[in-house]
């Protein structure tokens, strides 16, 4: 899972049932519209920002 750039300060989030990138962005950034930051940081995993799967471990920049 770890890629170049990941380190002890990289924050991770495991996708739970019912979550969207917007909800996750809201939780960490306070603003759901910033979901693209998470999308861009996980491009190797997320092909479509509207389609994320339960259990995926996402990098939260």
């Amino acid at each position, binding site marked *: 899972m770890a890629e170049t750039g990941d*380190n*002890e*300060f990289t*924050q991770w989030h495991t996708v739970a049932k019912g979550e969207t990138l917007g909800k996750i962005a809201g939780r960490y950034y*306070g603003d759901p519209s910033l979901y693209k930051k998470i999308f861009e940081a996980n491009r190797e995993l997320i092909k479509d920002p509207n389609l994320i799967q339960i259990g995926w471990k996402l990098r939260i920049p």
Partner: protein
Amino acid sequence: MTKTWKMMAAAVPFVFAVACTDAAKAPAEAAMTAAGAAVDSLKGDATRFAPSAVKAVEASYATAKDLIAKQDYKGALAIAGDIPAKAKEALAQAAAAKDALVKAWADAGGSIPKMLEAAKSRLDILAQAKKLPAGMDKAALAKAQGGLASLQSGWTAASEQYKAGDWSGAIAKAKDLKAQGMDLLKSIGLQ
């Protein structure tokens, strides 16, 4: 005849003492040469990383030189003979101390750039947020941004201090910065 014997008897201790002194002179001088070379080998890292051990060796060498000057060759030999081994111990002590400092710098300072990068990334994103996450307001964000700037300049100073040779000072500063950095990360929800 009796007078001659008396004179000879009186001279015996003197001759014996001279003979003993001379016997110890050459080994003492050889030992001093070796001791001098051992003391010279302590210049550089040893003086920097094991100053007490180096001072002890230098003090022994100075004492041995004094004894040579007083023609106490046996005494000088006894002290000078131990100096190469003591110098070797000082060199080993310095090497260990140097390794420990290099490791301490790597432990304390190695992760700081990554920590600052993570904090900057998050703060840059939070600066774009129309609404901040629970537990954070604009004042807290501004404080965190100021904290990051302070840590960045502190890290630059610590790195320069290390490059300038003040390893202990730089390590102490890096440890302090790391602790402050961890607090910053917590304040922005990164830890």
